[in-house]
C-alpha cells in the first residue's frame, strides 16, 4: 500500500513528467518549449486579470472533480458528471430566468434547484444499479447524452429561447452570483476602479462566488467522508458491499444516496457556471467536457476532495494558459491536452513511477514494487 506521502510525491513527479513530455511534443512540432512554457506561466500569473480568469475557469472543474472523487470513494464510477452538469446548468437557468425573487435568495434558490435536479439525474443511475444491477458506467454515459439532448430541447422551447440566438434567455440579475456585478458597471464603481489598477484588473473577468462555494463543498465532502455515519456507511459499501451488507448497512439505499450526492455536486458546477459566468444555457452539439475533465481532476487529486481544489486549479490553469499558445506562437492547444493526458497517464500508473524512482535511486526493484499493492 502506498502511503500518503508517497502518493503526493508520485503526483508531483507525474506532473513533472507530463510537462517534460509536453515539452518534447512542442519541440517535435517545431516550437521552443521553454518559450511556450514561459508564455503559459505568464498567461496565468502575468496579470491579476489572468489569475482571476484561471480561478473562474477552474471552478466548475473543481466541483465536477469532487463529484467524481466522492463517487469513487464510495465505490462508484461516475462518468455522468457531464450530464449532471448539463442538468444543473439548465435548471439553474430556468429558475434564474422564470422565477422572481429578491437578490441573493434568487441565486440560492436557483443553485439549489440545479443541485436537486442533478441529484435526481444522478440518482437515476444509482437506482438502476441498486434495483436491477445495471452498471453505473453504462447508465451514466447514456444519461450524459440524454441530458445533452434534453437540454437542447428545453432551450428551443419558445418562451425560454432567446430570439435569433442558439441559447436560452439570460438569467435575471437577481440570480447572479458574480461579485460586485452592478457596482462594477456603475459610475461610482468605474471611478473607483480607475484609480485601483489591481482591483480593476482582478475584477475584469466574471469573478463570482463559485470558487468559494467549491472550497466549501470540498470541505463539506471531506468532513462527511471522515466524520459522519453517512460517510462511514457510504465508504463501507464502496470498499466491500458484502461486508457492509453483513454489518447491517442498507447497500442499495447507499448506492442511490451516493449517486445523488455526486450528481448534486456536478449539478452545482453547472449552476455556478450559469449564475456566475455564462448567464445562459447554450444549445450544444456536443458536451463541453467539464464532467470528463472532472474525472482527470479526481484522478490527479487521488479522490481527495480537498486536493481537488489544487488539481482543478492546475487543470484549469493549464487549459486557460494553453489557449494562449496558439495566438502567440501558433502552437496548437492539443499540445496542452497531450501534457494533461500524460500527467493523468502517469498518475494512473503509480507502479511505473515507483519503478522509475527506484531505478533512479538505484534501489532494489522488488521491494518497492511490492510496497505498492
Amino acid at each position, binding site marked *: *500500500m502506498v502511503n500518503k506521502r508517497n502518493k503526493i510525491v508520485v503526483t508531483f513527479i507525474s506532473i513533472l513528467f507530463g510537462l517534460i513530455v509536453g515539452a518534447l511534443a512542442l519541440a517535435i512540432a517545431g516550437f521552443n518549449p521553454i518559450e511556450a512554457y514561459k508564455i503559459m506561466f505568464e498567461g496565468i500569473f502575468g496579470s491579476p486579470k489572468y489569475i482571476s480568469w484561471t480561478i473562474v475557469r477552474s471552478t466548475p472543474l473543481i466541483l465536477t472533480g469532487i463529484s467524481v472523487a466522492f463517487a469513487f470513494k464510495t465505490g462508484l464510477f461516475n462518468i455522468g458528471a457531464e450530464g449532471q452538469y448539463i442538468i444543473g446548468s439548465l435548471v439553474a437557468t430556468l429558475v434564474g430566468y422564470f422565477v422572481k425573487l429578491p437578490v441573493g435568495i434568487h441565486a440560492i434558490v436557483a443553485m439549489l434547484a440545479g443541485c436537486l435536479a442533478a441529484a435526481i439525474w444522478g440518482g437515476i443511475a444509482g437506482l438502476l444499479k441498486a434495483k436491477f444491477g445495471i452498471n453505473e458506467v453504462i447508465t451514466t454515459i447514456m444519461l450524459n447524452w440524454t441530458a445533452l439532448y434534453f437540454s437542447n430541447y428545453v432551450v428551443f422551447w419558445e418562451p425560454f429561447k432567446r430570439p435569433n440566438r442558439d441559447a436560452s434567455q439570460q438569467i435575471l440579475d437577481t440570480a447572479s452570483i458574480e461579485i460586485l456585478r452592478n457596482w462594477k458597471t456603475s459610475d461610482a464603481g468605474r471611478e473607483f476602479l480607475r484609480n485601483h489598477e489591481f482591483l480593476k484588473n482582478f475584477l475584469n473577468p466574471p469573478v463570482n462566488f463559485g470558487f468559494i462555494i467549491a472550497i466549501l463543498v470540498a470541505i463539506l465532502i471531506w468532513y462527511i467522508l471522515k*466524520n*459522519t*455515519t*453517512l*460517510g*462511514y*456507511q457510504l*465508504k*463501507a459499501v464502496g*470498499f*466491500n458491499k*458484502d*461486508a*457492509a*451488507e*453483513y*454489518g*447491517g*448497512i*442498507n447497500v442499495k439505499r447507499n448506492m442511490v444516496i451516493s449517486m445523488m450526492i455526486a450528481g448534486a455536486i456536478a449539478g452545482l458546477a453547472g449552476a455556478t457556471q450559469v449564475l456566475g459566468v455564462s448567464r445562459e444555457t447554450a444549445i450544444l452539439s456536443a458536451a463541453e467536457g467539464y464532467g470528463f475533465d472532472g474525472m482527470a481532476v479526481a484522478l490527479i487529486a487521488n479522490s481527495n476532495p480537498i486536493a481537488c481544489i489544487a488539481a482543478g486549479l492546475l487543470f484549469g490553469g493549464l487549459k486557460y494558459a494553453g489557449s494562449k499558445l496558439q495566438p502567440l506562437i501558433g502552437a496548437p492547444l492539443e499540445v496542452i491536452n497531450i501534457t494533461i493526458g500524460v500527467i493523468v497517464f502517469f498518475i494512473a500508473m503509480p507502479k511505473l513511477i515507483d519503478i522509475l524512482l527506484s531505478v533512479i535511486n538505484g534501489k532494489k526493484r522488488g521491494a518497492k514494487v511490492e510496497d505498492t499493492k
Partner: protein
Amino acid sequence: MLTPQEIDELMEIIRSLTSQGKTVIIITHKLKEIKQVADYCTIIRRGKKIDTVKVEDVSEEQLASMMVGRNVSFKVDKTDREPGEVVLEIDNLYVKDNRGLDAVKGLSLKLRKGEVLGLAGVDGNGQKELLEALTGLRKVESGKIIMNGQDITNLSPREIIDSGINNIPEDRQKRGLVLDFTVAENMILENYHKKPFSSGGRLNHKAINDFATELVEKFDVRPRNIKQFAGALSGGNQQKVILAREITNNPEVLIAAQPTRGLDVGAIEYVHKYLIEQRDKGKAVLLISFELDEVMDVSDRIAVIYDGKIVDILDAKTADEKTIGLLMAGGGVDGE
C-alpha cells in the same frame, strides 16, 4: 472437503503408493493425517524450516508446538453444563441457492441457551444458504425462524443483529471485514450508528479509538495498531478482530461459521476458548464447520446436515466419528 471415510481412503491410496516404492509429499495442517501416513515430517513456520523429524518419534502435541512455537492444548476445556430453554428455533425452513434450486429443504432445529450446537456436514449441503438465511442475507422461501419467541423470518440483517444474533462469517475477507478500513473502523461495523460511537450522525472518533484499543489489547490482535488496515493483518489476527467485535456485542446467539478456517493450531485453540466462554455465559452458539474434529471437540450436541435437512442430532459425548461420517455422507438416510 472429504468425509472421514474418504480421508481414510485417501490415506490408504497414499500408503499403497509408497509401498510400491513411490515418493509422496503431503502438505497439510492436519496432524492426524501426518501421524497416519507420513514417515518423516518437516515443520515450517512463517516461511522458515523449523525441523525435520521422524514421525514415530514425536507426539501430536510436540508437532503442534513446533508449528505454533508454543505449547498447545488439544483438549477443549469445558465442563458439563445443563442447557437452558430454547432461544432460537428454525422450523421447516426452505431456502434457495444462487441457481434458484432448493438448498435448504425443510430444515428444523432448536438451539438452547448455554449450549454449543455443532452442525456437521460436507460442504455444499445447504450450510451456506442456511447461514445466510439466518443472518438476513438470503430470502427464506418458506418456514420460520423464531428468536426468543419473536418471528424474525426475512428481517433485514440489521434487525436480526438487533434481535440478538451475531455471526462470525464463513469468509472473513469477503463478509467479515472491510479490508480497506482500519482495525478501529472494522470494530464498529455493526454499531457505528449507535452511541457512543456516533451521535446525531457524527462519528465520535475518540470513543471508537478507545473501544478499538481496548479490544485489540483484550483479544491480543497483533500488531496493536488500531490504525492498521484490516487487509494488512494475518488471517489469524483478522479473525481475532471479528471475534472481538462479535463477542463484545455479547449476543444471545452466536453463529460461528467455519471460525477456524485456515488458522494455525494456536489460533484455533484461541477461537475455541472464546466459543466455550460464550456458552458458559449462558449464550447459545451454533457452530457450522466442515471440520468434524472441531465439531466433535467443541459441541455439546451435534446436528448432521445432509442435502438441506437435519438427518440426526447426537450427543457429542457419546457420538463417534464413524456414525457421524456415515450420516454426513447420507448413509443414515437411504441406508447405503
